[in-house]
């Protein structure tokens, strides 16, 4: 392909051309331009247009030229200046020469579509202009051609003036549009080529190079989102489209997709022939507003969902207490139609006995702003009045004024019922505890009465035994004195019998020889017996008054000691004492010794004659108590005497052994004092088993009984 030398072509052109960069610095020019401006290439290249050709910035020519350049830069379209007065300096520096020009400014773009330079084609029309002026002031120039020329020129000037006015208006409008807070753009033709886009629009779409590009090219991401179809429709139908909160995804400056919500209008622009020539786009980015709205709606929905899903009844009121919200649960619970409890109608849902109280309380809360807290009975949909805990809190604004009240109702019926039951059962428990305490008090009273009586009896026994003893001492003493006297009498009687036997009558003989001795003998044996009985009572009463001293007792040791002290009796009777396993006990040592000493001694005493005696002592731990058994193979006890043997002065079976019937009575008294029991099992002729049960551990206080 044959290449064309554009530079040579450019230079050879008779039309003057100059090339400027977007900063209006002169980049180059052809020969024609140098000729018409009377300048050299060196004078112009690299200089700013307005430096190279200075002019008064307020002059009409300066403004026109600058505005034309700016239009080209901003709109990237060629601009024409049909006529412009612009003086240029003379080459010799001798002032300026007035010139009239007609110029065309053409933008030049690189491959990326960016404006790289502006080409000015300018024609010096000064002569033409002077001719016109001359024609206006003289009649010299006449004839049809002159007229035509003049007329044409006038027309051009008129157009130019109109253009200038329009241009100013356009400029003004453009400035307005540019600064408008809403976004504004215009697209023209069926491909919707951007002809205008203000700062807000460029901001929304996040890019500036829109002018001259079809929408599908400038904003490729909107194609799939249906906006081209929308523009097509408006273009075809001539019907405007109004979108509210339309969601749009735009490629952000950082390459990420951004979600926008836009309110906008696609307004068709009609040409004179009534066809749609383009579309005017105007609107607002409502993304933030929309987001806030969405967030609000979301949070409201969430609140509603929460409010309706929770088990509580929730309500809200205006600052004056007018109920304007209840959650779903309220309506489910009460079974009343939605809205029927708005205002103050809620009060009617309460139990008649609670209405006034609740109303007053609510009023007081409204007046004072104090939280509302009350328990009342609320009518359930079942018709039952159920106990409910009502609470409410005011919400205040920044000035501290109450803006709303939020309240809840919580069904506490079951809880309250349970509380009631609990209270009742507690009352019953208290009652029964009281009863128990009363019984215990009565018991304690009885016990202390018994103790007192017991003490009294013991004191009585003690005093009685003393008091009985005192006369007994006399009976014994004077019986002795009597015996002394008897001796004297007998001596005297013997002497009389020897010396004067006739004085002795049979009566005197009987009295002195038998009656006296017999009487004294009976008195003596009786007093001895009585003394023993009194001693026994004394011993028992004394034992009852003894203070018990609990101590740990090794039973096997204690029993071995008993074996030792009874060694003589055991040896005499030939009986064998077997001490088996015995649990230990905490008790009064002396008392325990006496109990087992007596029982073992009894067993030795009442063996079956002709059968070698065997006495076994064993025991068992029962937890809180211990049980001991003293078993013998002795003569046994008749069943009718099982109780009797424990009574004082009572004995059983053949009375062939020494004793006053005190031993077992004493044992039982001791066992009882230790808090235990004693019983007997026996078969006559086979043996007896005495069972003693004692507390494993006695304390001093348990001694009371």
């Amino acid at each position: 392909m044959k290449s064309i030398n554009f530079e040579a072509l450019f230079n050879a052109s008779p039309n003057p051309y100059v090339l400027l960069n977007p900063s209006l610095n002169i980049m180059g020019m052809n020969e024609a331009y140098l000729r018409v401006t009377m300048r050299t290439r060196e004078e112009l290249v690299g200089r700013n247009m307005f430096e190279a050709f200075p002019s008064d910035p307020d002059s009409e020519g300066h403004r026109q030229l600058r505005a034309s350049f700016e239009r080209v830069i901003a709109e990237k379209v060629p601009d024409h200046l049909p006529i412009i007065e612009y003086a240029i300096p003379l080459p010799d520096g001798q002032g300026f020469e007035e010139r009239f020009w007609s110029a065309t400014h053409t933008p030049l773009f690189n491959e990326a579509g960016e404006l790289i330079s502006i080409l000015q084609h300018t024609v010096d029309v000064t002569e033409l202009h002077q001719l016109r002026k001359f024609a206006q002031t003289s009649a010299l120039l006449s004839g049809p051609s002159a007229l035509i020329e003049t007329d044409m020129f006038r027309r051009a000037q008129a157009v130019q003036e109109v253009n200038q006015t329009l241009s100013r208006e356009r400029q003004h409008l453009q400035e307005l549009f540019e600064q408008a807070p809403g976004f504004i753009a215009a697209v023209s033709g069926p491909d919707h080529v951007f002809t205008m886009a203000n700062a807000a629009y460029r901001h929304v779409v996040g890019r500036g190079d829109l002018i001259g590009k079809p929408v599908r090219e400038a904003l490729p991401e909107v194609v799939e989102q249906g906006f081209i179809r929308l523009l097509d429709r408006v273009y075809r139908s001539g019907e405007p489209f109004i979108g509210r909160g339309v969601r749009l995804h735009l490629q952000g400056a950082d390459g990420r997709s951004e979600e926008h919500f836009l309110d906008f209008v696609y307004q068709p622009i009609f040409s004179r022939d009534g066809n749609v020539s383009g579309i005017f786009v105007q609107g607002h980015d409502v993304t933030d507003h929309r987001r806030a709205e969405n967030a609000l709606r979301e949070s409201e929905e969430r609140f509603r969902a929460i409010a309706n899903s929770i088990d509580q009844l929730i309500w809200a009121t205006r600052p004056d207490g007018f109920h304007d919200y209840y959650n779903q649960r309220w309506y489910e619970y009460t079974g009343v139609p939605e809205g029927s409890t708005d205002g103050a109608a809620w009060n009617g849902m309460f139990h008649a006995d609670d209405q006034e109280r609740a109303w007053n309380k609510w009023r007081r809360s409204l007046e004072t702003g104090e939280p509302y807290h009350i328990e009342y009975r609320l009518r359930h949909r079942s018709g039952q009045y159920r106990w409910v805990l009502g609470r409410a809190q005011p919400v205040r604004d920044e000035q501290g004024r109450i803006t709303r009240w939020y309240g809840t109702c919580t069904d506490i019926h079951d809880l309250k019922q349970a509380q009631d039951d609990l209270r009742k059962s507690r009352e019953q428990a208290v009652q029964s505890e009281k009863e128990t305490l009363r019984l215990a008090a009565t018991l304690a009273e009885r016990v202390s009465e018994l103790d007192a009586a017991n003490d009294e009896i013991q004191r009585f026994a003690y005093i009685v035994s003393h008091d009985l003893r005192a006369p007994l001492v006399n009976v014994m003493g004077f019986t002795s004195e009597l015996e002394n006297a008897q001796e004297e009498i007998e001596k005297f009687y013997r002497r009389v019998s020897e010396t004067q036997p006739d004085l002795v009558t049979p009566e005197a003989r009987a009295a002195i020889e038998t009656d006296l001795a017999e009487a004294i003998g009976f008195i003596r044996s009786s007093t001895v017996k009585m003394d023993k009985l009194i001693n026994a009572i004394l011993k028992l009463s004394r034992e009852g008054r003894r203070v018990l001293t609990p101590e740990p007792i090794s039973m096997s040791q204690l029993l071995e000691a008993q074996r030792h002290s009874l060694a003589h009796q055991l040896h005499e009777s030939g009986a064998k004492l077997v001490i088996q396993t015995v649990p230990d006990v905490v008790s009064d040592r002396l008392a325990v010794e006496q109990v087992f000493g007596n029982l073992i001694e009894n067993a030795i005493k009442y063996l079956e004659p002709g059968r070698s005696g065997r006495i076994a002592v064993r025991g068992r731990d029962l937890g809180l108590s211990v049980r001991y058994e003293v078993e013998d193979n002795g003569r046994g006890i008749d069943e009718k005497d099982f109780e009797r043997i424990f009574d004082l002065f009572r004995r059983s079976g053949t009375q062939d052994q020494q004793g006053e019937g005190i031993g077992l009575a004493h044992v039982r008294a001791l066992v009882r004092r230790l808090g235990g029991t004693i019983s007997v099992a026996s078969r006559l002729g086979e043996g007896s088993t005495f069972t003693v049960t004692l507390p494993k551990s006695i304390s001093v206080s348990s001694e009371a009984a």
Partner: protein
Amino acid sequence: MPQQQPVTIIMIEDDDGHARLIEKNIRRAGVCNEIRAFKNGTAALEHLFHEDVRNDGPFLVLLDLNLPDMNGVDILVKLKNDEKLKRAPVVVLTTTDDQREVQRCYDLGANVYITKPVEYESFSQAIRQLGLFLSVIQVPETL
């Protein structure tokens, strides 16, 4: 011995029989000292604490614990707390052989404690031994 005056026996015993038996046995033991018998505590104390009597020792006190108007122990305390009378030996005669009571009497300063036994022989034996006791009487203050 500063004093060679015979010992006066003060017998405080409410039981006439006992008193008679005691006296008989004392006499039978060959003791001829004066015996002043009192049937209750009040009269005995009145007598003993009379200034003339109080300074007119020495005394031997035979004391029964079971008196109608007071406990013999109270009399014992009063005697042993008196500067003069505390030197008089006190023989406690009683029907009880309660060890605690015996101990208490000794603690309070009783010199001899005799249980009135029903077995008369041992009783009169004990009384008679008092005769020996009386011959060496005058209780040292340390007792």
